[in-house]
């Protein structure tokens, strides 16, 4: 790919991250009731049970430059964030926000990655088949049901699945990422299976909710591709329907579909965070919920920042992969 393209996508990445950071900062300081002050007062009220709270509060003031002019505070904030110094958490005191997030992030990414890959792949194939005239009747009838089903938000679907499969019959665990008390155990096949078991319902929520979206998108893209001249020529050449479907149809419909993926990642991430909340799944969604209840402002900010960073990174990766599937982009 060309340098120009690479730099352009990288620039977008930085603009997104910087915008998020700046918005974070502005909101924190523009809104009446200084949240950092709130954090500090929180610590003060808990101060009775925490040692050295006075020194910690003082070091906060210094670290975040609360006595300095606002633009200095901003620069300090940006510098800190880039170094992933996101502050100290209240709920997990004295653990830093970064440490807590590092523990929780793999769960979120694992769930998100697995579920999205499955939903995207299955949904795209389904969507492509729906657009193809030769697809059997049965699939056509089942598909709309599935698609309508997926218009229900991740969170609601999660709750419904939770009730239907975990509360009512006890087929699946009520929550958590692993059987309680086993967090410290070494990795083993049994542990992996246990993790998968706990991750089934949360993953299923995301897959079911997302399937219809990908199917519809692919169907639309496929319908457009099927109207193109090169499809007619492929047919005229007497190529096998299978070959036409995959190499001439799907392969081209995949392009707008991948673009769609890049654009939806933000929404998908938001949705799956809520699914974690419904299932008490130990990802960053869970951190967020607790942080909100305890007004752990640094944690809230930290989680939001990491969320933005994760999505922006994923989008960047997709952007860099795109020239590999579309030869028209970024070739010199």
């Amino acid at each position, binding site marked *: 790919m060309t340098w120009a393209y690479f730099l352009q996508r990288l620039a977008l990445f930085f603009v997104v991250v910087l915008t998020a950071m700046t918005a974070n900062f502005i*909101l924190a300081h523009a809104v009446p009731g200084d949240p950092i002050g709130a954090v500090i007062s929180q610590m003060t009220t808990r101060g009775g049970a925490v040692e050295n709270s006075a020194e910690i509060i003082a070091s906060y003031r210094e670290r975040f430059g609360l006595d300095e002019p606002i633009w200095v505070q901003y620069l300090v904030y940006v510098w800190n964030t880039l170094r992933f110094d996101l502050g100290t958490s209240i709920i997990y005191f004295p653990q830093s926000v970064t440490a807590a997030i590092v523990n929780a992030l793999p769960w979120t990414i694992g769930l998100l990655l697995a579920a999205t890959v499955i939903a995207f792949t299955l949904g795209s194939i389904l969507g492509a088949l729906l657009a193809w005239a030769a697809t059997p009747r049965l699939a056509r009838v089942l598909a709309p049901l599935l698609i309508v089903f997926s218009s229900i938000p991740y969170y609601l679907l999660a709750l419904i699945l939770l009730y239907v499969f975990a509360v009512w019959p006890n087929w699946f665990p009520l929550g958590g990422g692993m059987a309680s008390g086993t967090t410290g155990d070494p990795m083993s096949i049994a542990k992996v299976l246990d993790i998968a078991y706990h991750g089934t319902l949360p993953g299923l929520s995301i897959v079911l909710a997302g399937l219809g979206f990908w199917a519809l998108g692919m169907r639309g893209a496929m319908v457009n591709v099927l109207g193109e001249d090169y499809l007619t020529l492929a047919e005229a050449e007497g190529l096998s329907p299978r070959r036409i479907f995959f190499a001439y149809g799907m392969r081209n419909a995949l392009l707008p579909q991948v673009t769609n993926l890049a654009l939806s990642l933000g929404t998908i991430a*938001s949705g799956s965070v809520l699914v974690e909340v419904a299932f008490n799944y130990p990802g960053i969604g869970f951190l967020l919920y607790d942080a*909100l209840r305890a007004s752990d402002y640094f944690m809230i900010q930290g989680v939001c920042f990491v969320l933005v960073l994760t999505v922006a990174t994923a989008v960047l990766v997709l952007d860099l992969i795109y020239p590999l599937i579309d030869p028209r982009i970024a070739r010199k």
Partner: protein
Amino acid sequence: MTSLGTAPGRRPNPVLSALGHVATNPKLLAGLLLVSSLVAVAAIGPLLVDTDMARPISAPSNRPPSLDYPLGTDGGGRDLLAVMIASTPQTLRLGLIAGLVGTIVGTFLGLVAGFFGGWLDKIISTATDVMLTIPPLAVLLIVAASVRTVSVEMMAFIIAALAWMNPARSIRAQVLSLRERAYVEIARISGMSELRIALFEVLPNLLPLIMASFVAAVSGAILAALGLEALGLGPQDTPTLGMTVYWSLLYGAFGRNMWWWWAPPIVVLAILFVGLFLISVGLDEALNPRLRRQS
């Protein structure tokens, strides 16, 4: 198809043909039915049921459904039927306001970007891409967490700030393709000013797309609201469907098998989303005739 000469007829009136499509599209009809019945409940309900009973401690708590309380009561002593009647219009209002504001702003930006192009387009498109990449929840959280108490209107406006991107994108794309169409060229040649072209030639043909974007925006707004409410950041004083679910989970209604508390709002929300979705897909099919032939 121009090579055949036009089939007997005239230049299609977009409004009439739209109405025709509505009547023949089952998805659209089903969706409209679902949504309008909810709207009817929201409008007529308060006249039939005393919404004061939706306030805390107006009834004995934790009662399962009975003749006195058809949907039972919750842990705070609220008559759940009243809660449902009171919260449905709130949620609908929220979606409507946020969707409307988001669609208007998005349409305006999309028109400007698509029609005038150049650096204006660049700026708007970049802003749209950036905002689309940022997970909406992250933005909502920071705002909601900073602002202590929110009213339904406030929430609506906050959410609207994230609802403009998709309309802007689709409108812009459509404007770009419409610009090249024959009747715009004709208008331009016959001397119409750019503004008049935008208003009288391009806009009427964008109406179906704007409608589709609006429906999608309303759905997205209620979804975003649900996200905030799931985390307890919704309006504390006015009941909404999402907050009702939140309170029920907080009080452990799941484990205590108080299905009458958490199930009705989820069902209503599900109906709402499915209905809006069907309308959206139906509209999509009406706009893209090739899709119609498929289903």
